């Protein structure tokens, strides 16, 4: 039997109007009828006076209040309606330092763009089925950041060694010319 998502109160925050409509429509199709959407973190903060969400799905890059600032408010502010509210952060930025920054701010799940119905539903399932305990230290409050036991990690990056800073390649105009010309040639045959 599938979960009944109908009565969940969801706050969706995304500054791109088209993307916001798309994700809202997807959430409704997934069975969530209680979705309220906002164009930035400030609008969503203002709405917290009269509405306590069960789940927050937010974009990262927005102004004046971005997704991480909003997350920080929920996790740490005295006026937060619920510091444990599950937060899913949508982002097209998947560089490692950004993922660490998001995790260290207290988001529960990261949803990488491009979003599909499958990945969106998977993240919602994750916060329902695999909630993590919260952790409070002097410098952090949020869901436990240890998803796996790294000593036992046998995944594809177990032998990953970061690039050495002196490992530089030449990039002069001549090489750029050749590379670009090759791409243009390939585009012709696309």
């Amino acid at each position, binding site marked *: 039997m599938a979960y009944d998502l109908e009565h969940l109160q969801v706050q969706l925050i995304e500054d791109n109007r*088209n*993307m916001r409509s798309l994700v809202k429509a997807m959430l409704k199709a997934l069975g969530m009828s209680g979705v309220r959407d906002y164009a930035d973190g400030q609008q969503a903060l203002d709405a917290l006076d009269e509405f306590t969400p069960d789940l927050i799905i937010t974009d990262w*890059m927005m102004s004046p209040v971005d997704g991480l600032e909003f997350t920080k408010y929920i996790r740490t502010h005295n006026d937060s309606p619920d510091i444990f509210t599950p937060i899913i952060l949508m982002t097209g930025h998947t560089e490692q330092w950004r993922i660490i920054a998001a995790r260290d701010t207290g988001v529960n799940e990261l949803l990488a763009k491009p979003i*599909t119905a499958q990945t969106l539903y998977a993240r919602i399932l994750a916060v329902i089925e695999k*909630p993590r305990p919260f952790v409070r230290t002097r*410098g952090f409050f949020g869901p436990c950041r240890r998803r796996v036991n790294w000593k036992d990690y046998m995944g594809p990056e177990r032998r990953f060694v970061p690039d050495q800073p002196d490992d530089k390649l030449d990039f002069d105009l001549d090489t750029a010319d050749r590379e670009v010309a090759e*791409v243009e040639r390939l585009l012709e045959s*696309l």
Partner: protein
Amino acid sequence: MPRAQPTPNKAPRGKPGDFQEIQVPNKLLEKVGPGFGANPAAVERADNIVEQMKATYEARLEDELEDVIASYEAMCASGTFDLDKLHDAVHEIRGEAGTFGYNLVSDIGKLLCELLSPIATVSASDEQAINAHLKAMQTVVARQVKGAGPEVAKQIIQGLTAIVEKSRNGK
């Protein structure tokens, strides 16, 4: 905005005794349960929604890309580059493109964002590299190449990746 580099974490480091683990009641499960696992019918419904919105999106994508290219050409002509603006516009396009099945546009857009991120001053080779990416996105959209595209698409991605990596490492 998104081109900003990371700032060091200045949060005070906790001492061993500072650690506190809190088991939180699962309010979500209380509200949606009982149940379990995936709901293929719901996912299919959401996929159908995306499919329904695709026609509108395709009409918009070409225009959006044209606007970005026109804006970039104006920057080149004036010699004044607003790379944050360019980055944001490309970033938005790539985010949506993949959702609507234009994976190749999304992949090229991602590479272009990576190319733009470390650039402080636009050199002639940067200009060429940016142009190659934009032209590649435009060609893919014009020819309506969806999904990962044909074999040659992989080679295009490899070629652009090489440009981005050389640019990044050569800085």
